[in-house]
């Protein structure tokens, strides 16, 4: 990372464009005068962009705390086989729907007598996977389409963005349910449905950022000095588009976890007996009169994961914001 853009903290209050479009990378907000300023003020302590971001994150105790919780949840899911006290599939006819602390089951048992704690740990694997994979794939495809559309402009842009508009015309839950419902559920179909739901907004974010960068002078300069289109995209456009795409993607993880669990809840996601938080919530729903608080657990897991992801994403957005 070059130090041309290193006086961002000193340049507080830079505003311009449409701030609502999200925090954009400082390198194209700050503009050329930064170089000049860095030379004029040699005594200013300078920090690179990412250094600034990490500096802010390190001093943001809340975000760090929530990131730690997310990390714990991820570790719990990854090391589920080591941590789980029981086999998550082992059923017991006498031990069905038992409350917290029954025998060796700290969180009780479900409607087939399976240990809740073990199932929650294993369930995290599926739920987290379904939260992250669709967002990753959608960022790749949507981001690529957005950059192509934004950079090419003209008819290509119109064709891509108008197609996206059609998918925008569906409420997101409805679109996910429609696709997963028509294809008949299952984990892969659920992920595919969520990916399709996330591609249009991702594409729009990337397109907006690309269109903004493309109009800047340094792109013109690169072109004038003979750089090929691919080179310009790789070195000048991507760096400026990745920031907004990353921030947006991080905010989608929580949405994706909620939607994925919702699909499983409707019977359109993971199939039993695989443990998944949404599916567990749906099968335990019939037993709320027997062990109400055990039945609320999978939802609590979804809620905690989703709120922590949201707060981490908010923290990242603030840390990566150029206008602060």
């Amino acid at each position, binding site marked *: 990372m070059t130090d041309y853009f290193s006086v961002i903290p000193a340049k507080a209050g830079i505003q311009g464009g449409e*701030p609502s479009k999200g925090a954009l990378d400082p390198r194209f907000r700050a503009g050329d005068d930064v170089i000049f300023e860095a030379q004029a003020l040699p005594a200013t302590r300078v920090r690179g962009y990412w250094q600034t971001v990490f500096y802010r994150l390190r001093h943001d105790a809340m975000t760090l705390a929530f990131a730690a919780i997310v990390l714990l949840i991820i570790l719990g899911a990854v090391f589920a086989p080591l941590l789980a006290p029981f086999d998550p599939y082992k059923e017991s006819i006498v031990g069905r729907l038992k409350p917290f602390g029954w025998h060796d089951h700290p969180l009780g048992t479900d409607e087939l007598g399976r240990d809740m704690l073990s199932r929650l740990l294993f369930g995290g694997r599926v739920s987290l996977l379904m939260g992250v994979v669709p967002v990753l794939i959608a960022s790749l495809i949507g981001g690529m389409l957005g950059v192509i559309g934004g950079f090419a402009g003209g008819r290509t842009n119109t064709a891509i963005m108008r197609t996206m508009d059609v998918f925008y015309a569906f409420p997101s839950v409805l679109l996910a349910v429609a696709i997963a*419902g028509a294809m008949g559920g299952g984990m892969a179909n659920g992920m595919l449905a969520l990916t399709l739901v996330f591609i249009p907004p991702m594409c729009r974010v990337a397109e907006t950022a690309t269109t903004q960068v493309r109009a800047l002078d340094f792109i013109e300069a690169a072109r004038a000095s003979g750089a090929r289109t691919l080179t310009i995209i790789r070195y000048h456009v991507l760096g400026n588009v990745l920031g907004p795409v990353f921030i947006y993607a991080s905010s989608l993880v929580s949405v994706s976890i909620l939607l994925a669990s919702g699909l499983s809840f409707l019977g359109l996601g993971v199939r039993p007996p695989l443990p998944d938080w949404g599916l567990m919530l749906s099968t335990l729903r019939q037993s*709320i009169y027997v062990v109400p608080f055990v039945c*609320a657990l999978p939802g609590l897991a979804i809620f905690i994961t989703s709120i922590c992801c949201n707060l981490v994403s908010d923290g990242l957005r603030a840390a990566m914001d150029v206008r602060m």
Partner: protein
Amino acid sequence: MGRYILRRILYAIPIAFGVSVVCFSLVYIAPGDPLQTVMPPDATAETIAIVKHAYGFDKPLPMQFLIWLGRVVTGDFGVSIATRRPVIREVSDALSNTALLAMFAVPISFSIGYVMGAVAGCFAGRWIDRVVTGAAVVGVSLPNYWLGIVLVIFFAVEYMLLPATGMGPNGSVGFNLLQWSNAKFLVLPVITLSMIPVGILARTTRAAVAEVRNQDFVQTLRAKGLSEWAVTRHVLKNAMPQVMAVMGLQFGYLLGGSILVETVFTWPGSGFLLSKAIINRDVPVLQGTILTLSLVFVATNLIVDLLQSLIDPRIRRA
């Protein structure tokens, strides 16, 4: 102005067309033959050919689409496989029940969310801002289907104050809002449904208000000697277009996205109809419901855009 409205309305037509293409293709992304569900398992090749012809499945796809579109435009969405009733009747009955929920959820969630966001935005950085921001994050992160279950656990199972599910003994036919014995069935679904829009609106409004407050013209207003109240009025008015766009989206979600909440409360609305259609693999109902809901969504977005342009002259010129 007139030209802007016309352009915006004309623009909605290709979108609606695209939406109908997507809905039409839902039948074809379904695995297996779309006729599998209506065909007896021991049907001969001859019967299959006859049924295929009767349903028009032997024609080329674009032809099938045009025929389907022609029927849809005249209000014929086909017949439900599960109930044998016309889909349009199923959908309109369900939609009226959903509208009943939305009738309460929309004003409640919009006013609470807006006020919360506006207050937080005006006092950005102060304690009340932190409280509102925290509450709003909870709102957007809550799985509403879970919240519904938790509310049922507390209010229906533990304290038996409110009914858990359904619309009461008479169902939707004799539902009378003015009677508490009927209206109490609305309480939990409406609260559950309102939670996410409250969170999203509070966040959006807060961001929009805080952003407008940082603009130069606010400084000018203060320098001119306007009272803080008058300045706030200007700020709120300038933040309105952004807030309204989100309100429009949320309105659409309340009509279409309530599938999870309606499933939890077995509320016989459009979302519940959809989840029943999925369980029964009732493709005509699935198609009809999704098409209707997304067309309502397109219309909502159109209306919001037009309202926005009424408030904000900058949009018209763009």
